[in-house]
Each structure stands twice: as C-alpha cells, then as structure tokens.
C-alpha cells in the first residue's frame, strides 16, 4: 500500500486504534498491525501508549516491535516493492532481477530511494514459487517478474 493512503498520526487517533484491539488475548501483534495499516509505520510515541493500555513495560513493547521484520519504524517510500529473495525464486532468476532493480533504483535492497519514491525490500517467499520471481508491489502480488517485466514496472506503475 502506498504511503499516501495512510492517515495522519496524532496521539488521539493512535489511542483509538489501540483501544479497538486491546480487549483480545495476546493483543500486541494485532495492535501493531492495525497501527501500521492506519498510519503507515509505528512511531516511537506509540510505544508508551501501547504499554500503558496493555499494562506492559515500554521495553517489552519495544522488544516485540523490533523483533518482527514487518513492522516499520520509519516512513516507507511512496511505493513499496517487496521482491522475493528465497530459494525457489533464486532458481528462477531472482538474483539477476534483484541486481537489475538495485542498479536501476540506485539503492541496495533494504533501502528507500533518496527521492522517497520506492522502498525496495526483501521478502522471503510468497507461496508463488512455481511462478517466480515473485513480488508484492504496493501489496499486490506479481509473478513471472523477469528483468524486462521489472523494467516495465519501474518505468510504469512505480513512477
């Protein structure tokens, strides 16, 4: 999902999201997912708010937040390109496609372009392993993503 679809953050709005999910058992992951879906990423200011509602220490919330690869602690680029780096896609040429995209975007995988256009991120398997290279482009699955298709994507949808 592109960052523009996200809502502006303020403490009250964050508190509402937290409260909406706090009632369930083991609420922390659902809360973090909901915050990220709403605001695009998790701010440091969210941590004490969550900790208070769930009766946890800030360190505990921080520990969970930083354990999981999905949760962002800084804003993503306008587009997010997650390209599969796992073995079955490697066997179908994903290493070349990765290198090509890195070169074209001028960043290493794991980074965001300087103009904030694209966050280029690794993902490990999308279950599209017979049709690789596979990717999630702003949340939409794309397969058979060879070098030429990657070019079209970077010059088209991701501009």
């Amino acid at each position: 999902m592109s960052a523009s679809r996200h809502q502006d953050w303020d403490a009250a709005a964050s508190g509402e999201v937290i409260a909406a999910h706090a009632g369930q058992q083991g609420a922390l992951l659902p809360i973090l997912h909901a915050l990220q879906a709403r605001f695009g990423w998790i701010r440091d200011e969210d941590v004490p708010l969550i900790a208070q509602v769930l009766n946890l220490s800030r360190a505990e919330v921080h520990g969970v937040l930083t354990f999981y690869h999905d949760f962002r602690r800084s804003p993503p680029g306008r587009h997010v390109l997650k390209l599969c780096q796992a073995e079955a896609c490697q066997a179908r040429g994903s290493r070349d496609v990765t290198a090509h995209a890195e070169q074209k975007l001028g960043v290493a995988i794991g980074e965001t372009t300087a103009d904030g256009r694209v966050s280029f991120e690794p993902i490990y398997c999308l279950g599209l392993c017979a049709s690789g290279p596979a990717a999630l482009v702003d949340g939409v699955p794309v397969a058979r993503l060879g070098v030429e298709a990657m070019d079209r994507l970077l010059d088209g949808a991701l501009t």
Partner: protein
Amino acid sequence: MTVRVFVPGDMAAVAVGAGAVVDALRAAAAASGVPIEIVRNGSRGLFGLEPLVEVLTAAGRVGYAAVTAADVPALAASGLFEGKGGHPKFIGDPKALPFFQRQTRLTFARCGVTDPQSLDDYRRHGGYRGLERAVAMTGEAIVDAIKLSGLRGRGGAGFPTGIKWDTVRLTPAAQKYIVCNADEGDSGTFADRMVMEGDPFLLIEGMTIAGVCTGATKGYLYVRSEYPFAVTAMQRAIETARRAGLLGAAVAGSSHAFDIEVRVGAGAYVCGEETALLESLEGKRGQVRAKPPLPAHAGLFGKPTVINNVLSLAAAPFILGEGAQAYRDFGVGRSRGTMPIQLAGDLRNGGLFETPFGVTLGDLIDDIGGGSISGAPIRAVQVGGPLGAYFPPSLFDTPFDYEAFAARGGLIGHGGVVAFNDSVDMAAQARFAMEFCAIESCGKCTPCRIGAVRGVETVDKIVRGEDRSANLTVLEDLCETMKFGSLCALGGFTPYPVMSALTHFPEDFGAPSRAPEAVV
C-alpha cells in the same frame, strides 16, 4: 442461460493477471449480450496454466490456458462462452491432463473445482461428512481413527497426529486450544496457501474435528502476513460457517462448542516453529521455548494445545468421512496416506502434486515436473525448504518418504521440491542458507545466532581461496556445533543445506581458478 465461467482467485493466478482477465471477460460478455457468472475458484495447481479460464458446458468443463486480458476478445469471438475449441489456448477438459490424471487427490479433491466460498458447494462435494461422523463419536474413537490412518504431521517433523491429539484429550483443563500453523515459511511450498484460498471450509472442518476430539473450544489460525488472500478467504469462510451453526456454541447441532480466530504473523520465519508461534500468539517476541513442557501439556497461555500444520488438520475430514483404512491404504512403510508435494523453481510443470508416498525424486523432477522450463539441465534439488538438503541427480532414486530421505541426510519437511539448473552456484546457496539463518534466528542460542554469521564469513573465505582447507574445517566444525548445540531446527538443520552443497558439489567451493577476480 447464464454461462458459468471459472477464473481462479488464487494469489498465484492473480499475480499473473487473473484480475484483468475477469474484467476483460465481463466486458466481452456484455458486448456480445451473453449473461455470465464468474466463479473465483481456487487454482487446480498447475501454475503454468494460469490464468486458467474454464467454461461449464453440457459436456463438462473445458479450459483455456495462460489467458491474458488481450486474448479475451479473440477468445470470445471464437466461441469461448460456448466452450468451443479451435483457439490455440483451448486445452479441453483440464483434469484430463496427465499432470492431474496421475494424482491421488484426497486433501486437494475440491481445490480448483468448487467455489471456495460456497458452503453448499463444499457440502455437495463431500464436505462436512467427517465432522458429522465425529460429533457422533467419542474423543477416543476419533483419536483411534487418526492413529489408524497413520497420519503424521505435515509441517516438517512428521510426528504422529493421533498421539498429539490424544495427549491433549487426556490432559484435564478448563480451557484447551487448537492452533493451526499456517506460517508456511519454507521456500518452495504453497500447499497451505492453496487450501486456505481454494478450500477454506476443509481447514475449518479439520480444526473443528480436532476441537471436538480433544475438548478444545477455541481455535487460532496463525497465518503469515505474506498470504493476504488466505487471511481474507479464511475470515470470510469462518463467518459463513458461524452463520450456518458449524462454528459456535453448538457445532453442527451437537453439544460441542468451537470457534476460530484468525491471527496474522509479522514476517518472522522462526514463528513457524511451534513454540515460537505460541509466543507470538501471546503477543510476545517469537522466541523458541525450551521443551518440556510440551505444548500438548502447557501450550498457548499455558493451556493444553494441539498445534498442527494446515495439511495435517486438512487430512482429518477425509479420514473421518471416508475411513482411516482408506487413507492408510495409500503410502509406503511408516509414511501413510498422500503427500501434497509442491514442485517449484526451474520446472516446466511447477505446481501441486498430491500423491501417495513412495514416488521417487527423479520421477518428480524429470517426469511429472517435466524437467526444467529454462531448457538447461537440472543440477541440484532442494527438498524440504531452507533447512533441507540439496540433492544431486545421482540421488534421484530416493523415494519420497520420511525415512528414506532421512537415510540420505535429508528431510521431506513440508513437501517443497525446488529445482535448480546448471547455472546455480552451490557455494552461493550454502552462503544463503547461513545468511537466512542469521536473519531469522530468534537469538536464543549462541550456536545459531553467532554461528550463522560466522558461517557466512567462512563460506566467503573459502570461495575467495583464503586458507581453503583450514576454513573448510572451520565450516564443518561450525556445522557440527550448530547441529548439536541449537535449541530448534533453524540452527540445528541449517547445516543440512550447507553440508550437502559442500559434499555433493565441492567443485563450486572455490577451486582458485574458477573466479579469478575473486581470488585474494
């Protein structure tokens, strides 16, 4: 008369343009005044055919393979809505293809055939027969059926499912849980995803049978975040099952209560390990727990918990509905029933192939898989995900069964088979195995956390030709330490891909003449 058209809503079909094909079909139908109904079925599982458009005719279903939106006007003009042939994309009855004819589909009987969100369709195709039998049986009788079937866990470890259920059944507690492990993190696997998207009521029924058997009233389905379509499909189907009284306070009109909640993972491979998954469900870091206690005694929130893979639970409706012996009759040795094998990587016929245990790796690759799609010869096959060994063609006679793979230093894991052609650099694959372990380590034990990082460095040194023989010894020692000093199989099994690459493909590990620019 309204024409029934099938276009898979499966993520792998959508990823190659199924959505645009649906739009084009609607437009073409409207233009020619043909009323159509489009069913978003699951995928039949031969992914080279996707998007596979099927049309129901008086003589059954016919298919058009690898359709693009641009193909649709011409296909419509040549009679697609009447199911006519003649167009090069016409393939006739898809299930007549040898890839499907050779399968024994027990778990995947409906996937790709039915409307996944239609409970009526599910029932018409034998669904809920297993649960109906189960609610009339004692927990002990259900366990006996699962034990007799010979079903072993399909998540990787191959532990007998009946024994697990029995332990939870016999552990007294006011609250017990059924947890379905849908973290499916292994590269080369997608069977769980296909069940959840293509036949979600099957998994709901399987989890419900486990609940009825053990006295658990609450189920959690932990789905990885990489599977957004599966999350939505399961949530919708669970809602439908609730409305139909198949989940809730009185399951199928019985005295059993059972309900299911979907939880979404957050991109940590280690959360597929059962105790890390439980930690994650509890809202904690996904760190592996020491055993004992077993989850069956003290699992989620400290309560007795069955934790099973999607495919293990999805086998239960057949076993209860059609009989344990019918399931057991398939397979070899101590590997009973069928295994949904997933063919991936550089193969012509990549996809889902459900078959009794015992088929050889060579048959899977050369014959069923059709060899490489790139045209280059297959050089290595990784079986069982990122913790599985690489097999060279000289070991292609290995039969697909738990014990036979173990005897050859491998594992079948969750049934993923990934084929690499001769452009593969096996040192790079060994390096990746260590790198993946380093990225995904939960950090609890040193051999895994530190060893994997050292492993990457050591492979690099070997490839550069730096103290080659000394560093080969370091790598071997490191692998031994990881194997025996790790708490779970992430650290403990990473040595399998590494050492198998080194053993079977030594020529890739830095003979100094190979890559002059890399020699120090």
